[in-house]
């Protein structure tokens, strides 16, 4: 069953067609990668899915319902969460608080309960903390829960961003270059973590990535964008053999004469 169906998505900025008639279907429980050279429109495509940009053409169906007309926070509340290419944590909040903010859509205590700090509030807060710590443990950050996010090392910040996204109990998580700037060791750890998101938590994963080893290792399906257009789609072997993909990455002529 398709969890996300983006059909004929087009987005034009001035004279530039950033995303051109892209169709993408994500099956529930899969790990899908969107790759492409810099400026291919991958992040713009993510921003359309999450509602930050409105597409000029095309329809996005999330879990069977169209997301047109919904604000980004409403789409997030439906269970579509993301991380950012350039990490966007709440720097002056603790690790635990960052995760708690991720749970915002699951907390409903009205303001008078907060002011009275009554039983139902304490119960809700207690549960939220338990759940947040569970997720921090999942990504391996529980020990550092009281540290400020800005004081975490780079790799931990990436993991915290994932934990924060998980706190919203998402059906779909969009990871925008989760291993950018990581060394090979950290990349392996990140790969394992991404796989565990799906295997242990049942979250469907879409990632934008440049690291081909990671992409080939974990994605069941790969879509390639170039100049805003989807030029190829398929599993790792298909993509590797596709001449247009090789051309997009290595330049014209590269596909014709494999060295």
């Amino acid at each position: 069953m398709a969890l996300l169906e983006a059909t004929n998505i087009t987005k034009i900025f001035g004279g530039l067609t950033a995303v051109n008639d892209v169709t993408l279907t994500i099956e529930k429980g899969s790990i899908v990668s969107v790759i492409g050279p810099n400026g291919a429109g991958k992040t713009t495509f993510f921003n359309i899915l999450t509602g930050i940009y409105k597409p000029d053409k095309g329809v996005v169906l999330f879990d069977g319902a169209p997301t047109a007309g919904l604000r980004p926070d409403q789409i997030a509340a439906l269970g579509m969460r993301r991380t950012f290419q350039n990490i966007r944590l709440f720097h002056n909040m603790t690790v635990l608080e960052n995760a708690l903010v991720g749970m915002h859509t699951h907390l409903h205590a009205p303001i008078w309960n907060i002011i009275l700090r009554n039983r139902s509030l304490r119960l809700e807060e207690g549960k939220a903390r338990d759940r947040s710590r569970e997720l921090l443990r999942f990504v391996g950050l529980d020990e550092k829960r009281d540290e400020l996010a800005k004081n975490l090392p780079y790799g931990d910040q990436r993991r915290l961003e994932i934990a924060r996204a998980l706190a919203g109990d998402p059906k779909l998580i969009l990871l925008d270059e989760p291993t950018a700037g990581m060394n090979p060791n950290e990349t392996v750890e990140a790969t394992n973590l991404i796989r565990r998101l799906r295997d242990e938590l049942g979250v469907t994963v879409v990632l934008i990535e440049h690291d081909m080893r990671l992409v080939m290792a974990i994605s069941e399906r790969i879509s390639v964008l170039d100049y805003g257009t989807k030029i190829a789609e398929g599993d790792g072997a298909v993509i590797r053999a596709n001449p247009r993909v090789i051309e997009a990455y290595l330049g014209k002529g590269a596909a014709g004469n494999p060295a």
Partner: protein
Amino acid sequence: MAKSTPQTGGTGAWDQLVGLIGRGPGGYVFLSIYTLVTSLLLLLNPRTNLFTDIVFILFLLLILAIYRTKVHVGFKIALGVITLGFVMPYFGTLNPYYIDVATQAGIFATLAMGLNVVVGFAGLLDLGYVAFYAVGAYLWSIFSTPQVGLMISGATPIPSGWFYGFILLGLTVGGVFGVLLGLPVLRLRGDYLAIVTLGFGEVIRVLAVNLDKPLNITNGAQGIKDIERPPLFFADPLRAIFSSFGRQLDNNQLYQIFFYFMVLVVVLITILIVSRLKNSRIGRAWTAIREDETAAIAQGIPLVRMKLMAFAVGASFAGAMGVIFASKQLFINPPTFDLLRSIGILTMVILGGLGNIPGVILGAVLVTLLDLQILPRIAEILRSAQKAGWPIPSAFDPTQYQRLLFGLLMILMMIFRPEGILPEDRRRQELHEEDEEIVEDAAEAEAA
């Protein structure tokens, strides 16, 4: 607003001092002696002079010392009740000037805490905050005086017993005005937001000046006088208590103590509400918006609703306090609510420590003391020195230079301590309260 704030800057000096006194019994002895000495000095020497000024400031700083020193919570509460509940009001009957300063400090502490919700928590710079204070003040002023008859012909002033209802009404109306301000500025950030809020504050003030015709609502620039005070609760028992200490109180003295306690209660309630909000889903959402709006939205935080809520909550404290202020002051006019007042409250928030509740209260108390006490006293000393033949040019009028000194202090403060006196230190978030001490001990061991 300072980008790089050291995390533990505020606590260092005090911890060192307490470290010198020693842990355990040291704190108890220190606080007891501090309380005893300052209280006795105040009660034995109640005249208004420089010496009493200094003791009074030390006495107010005692509250901070009680808050910061590591002693049993029960001991802290006991000392708080003794100092603020007994010594201060009794001293107030001996010298009405100082308890008025304390009451004003409390009023501003509440306002600063309210503004801190908007500026400190949610990061929305508001330069027109005093408008909500004005709304609350005019609300009670109009309806408790014959002014209401000029607005609605035939209407008579509301009985003074309604005062308490009007505090709640002020709270609500303040909140509504907060939303009214919030709606047009939702898309604005930073400088633009500051300018629109500044304009809003001026609009309210100018309305207060000009709404005397065609229909006389605010009585214009003349202001409203003879504002009703609430009926005194416990007047007779209060009088009896004080007369058993040998103090016969007239009505005005009783009202002073009455307002002092009322403000004290409001301050305590405000602290409770604001700190609970801060550590809730709402407070976390505000902080998230302050830190990174885009990331906050991605967590499903509805930006519009949370920003409006910050404006409404912040404004409601000002609205409620406005009612109390008008009633205490007996007279209000538009200049009371000018831009300088908004800036003054913002100064308290930033000087004390943006976002940090104890810091903001300290900022409010210090700025109030500076304004009402320290600077006028310095001017007075300079003037008498001038008269005594010191080489100060006669063209120099010290009272004119109070604001200059104030500005200088602010500049120095922002250069040397831009994060405020007590910066926000993110406290450990604990799952269970009983873990708190263990973790704290562990952290100390780690630091050592």
